[in-house]
């Protein structure tokens, strides 16, 4: 897949670039409004990661421009402002999702993939990983064609891990993905452990290979090896 990162903060841009490229994607980056304007005018991307506050312009203007030239690129807004108005404005201008800084790269990638999936007009909502099959629309999970009953949180978690396969996901990121803002509660790390334990059991019970690997108590990795 091909992505454009429009972000003026170099450190953040590099990290995102690195994370996405490692997944086998191609990343273009723009550090200001002008660069962003040129790149999105010329090339087509699967998804554009758009920062709203740029040194020489408003990210929302780029979004308007994109819609004006009738491009169907997916857009994920990344903003430091957690303002409902801006969120609504961005989404109504045609952005697909709105992510508030700071975020985990795994969260970012999961969202980007979701956007690309939704944008995929073939209607292919199924994610396949070996014997595992997840329907992102109906939220059904099948192992070798056999339906596995998962709770909403468990299936969310599974999708999150599958989206970020081969990556280490910190417990922190997983907790925030599930509980959002209220993730700061003590014990929340225990729940991730419990959820993953249950998830593993449910999957292996129907003959799925155990793809979850614990990484030094800091997080988990969903990988074949």
């Amino acid at each position, binding site marked *: 897949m091909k992505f454009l990162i429009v972000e003026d903060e170099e450190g*953040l841009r590099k990290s995102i670039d690195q994370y996405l490229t490692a997944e086998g994607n191609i990343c273009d980056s723009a550090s200001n409004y002008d660069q962003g304007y040129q790149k999105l005018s010329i090339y087509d991307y699967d998804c554009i990661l758009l920062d709203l506050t740029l040194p020489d312009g408003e990210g929302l203007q780029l979004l308007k421009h994109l819609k004006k030239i009738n491009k169907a690129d997916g857009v994920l807004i990344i903003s430091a402002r*957690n303002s409902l108005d801006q969120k609504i404005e961005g989404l109504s201008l045609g952005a697909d999702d709105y992510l508030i800084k700071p975020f*985990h790269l795994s969260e970012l990638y999961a969202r980007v993939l979701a956007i690309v999936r939704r944008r995929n007009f073939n209607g292919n909502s199924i994610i396949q990983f070996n014997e595992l099959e997840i329907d992102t629309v109906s939220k059904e999970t099948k192992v070798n064609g056999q339906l596995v009953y998962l709770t909403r949180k468990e299936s969310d978690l599974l999708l999150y891990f599958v989206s970020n396969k081969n990556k280490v996901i*910190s417990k922190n990121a997983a907790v925030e993905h599930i509980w959002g803002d209220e993730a700061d509660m003590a014990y929340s790390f225990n729940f991730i452990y419990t959820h993953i334990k249950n998830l593993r059991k449910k999957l292996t019970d129907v003959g799925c290979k155990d793809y979850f690997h614990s*990484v030094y108590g*800091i997080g988990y990795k969903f990988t074949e090896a």
Partner: protein
Amino acid sequence: MKLFSSYNRILSIITLSGLLIIGFLFYQTLGQYINKQIDDHLYEELLEVQDFAHVKNILPSPDGFYDVVVKYKKINSLSDPRRSFADTNFYNPKKKHTESARYLRTQLVLDGQSYEITIMASKFERQEQIKSIILIILLPVLALLLVLWLVNRFLIKRMWLPFRQLLANIKAFNINQEKVFEPIHTNIEEFKELNKAVLDVSLKAKSDYREVKLFTENASHEMMTPLAVINSKLDTMLQSNTLGKEESEILNDLYKATSKLTKLNQSLLLLVKIDNNQLQDKTEINLKTLLQEKLAYFQEFIQERNLEVKTEMAEFSFYANQSLMEVLVNNLLSNTIRHNYDGGSIQITLMPDCLICSNTSTHGPLDPVKIFERFYKDSASDGTGLGLAILKQVCLRQNYELSYSYQQQQHHFKIIFNGQESKT
């Protein structure tokens, strides 16, 4: 003491004592004047007696006098021929009661016999005159004073009216609210000055407050991007294949600190947002449903700590901002879970217009004022210390009444939803 009472007290002390002194002096002067008149009269009578004695060589009969009483007394020798005037009392046989009187006593010699002559005149009528005169003068003066006092009272009340209005406006002024200080209209120079001073101070306070808020908002926002960088770098480091146990622990701590900092920043921003009244669009909220949703949301936390949840919820819907109500319920519930002990209990009581969240805790009663202050938390808590401050701010903004109490080993947080049209 009110200014008017204080002023009045001084004024009445001065008036009364002045009136007393003047009255006393007046009475004295009048009395002396009247005494002098009587003395003149007595002297004239004495002259008549002397003339009579001189011409007829006998003393006139005591019965022959009109309005004075004359007495003769034989004495052995002439001891003190001087005339002496003095006050006395005598029994008036006609009126049959004792009256005060004035007498003149002197001695004279007639045919070699010394006599002491006492001529006495009643002061009764004169005294009555004095009384009338004093009454005639005093009563109008008293009436005048009363009128003056009333006029004063009325005038002062009217003159202080702008001051009262000013005071009410100052009291109504809230730095937190959009409404600016309302100046009053008056022609009195002093009040105009006071008005202007208060207006200036209020505007200054408002602008300072706005600046502080703006600063908090901007600072918090500016911090979000570096935080995002830190977070993304941590995520990148996490992918490294050379990560050992020690590095993992360090990473873990870094994650925790970053996440806490983020949470803190978000809470500060939320506070500013509530302060700025940015969350205004209201929808109908069913509080019972919202509470049930949030309880389900916190389900794992409740189960993990083995908490017993008792609910007693009536239907209650009202108009409010969805996000604010979510924040309110979230903070209340997470507070009851966070500060509980394992195996403790939570009691949620929802009545129309009133929500009470109670929880058991290892802590005894808390300071009902301090707990709502920003960054007030016990050392064991790993929260931001802003949860209750946010709760308070939400309630303050919506005019809900938030109170804390400690009863039967339980902490109770009570919110009364004032001025809501219940829709149950």
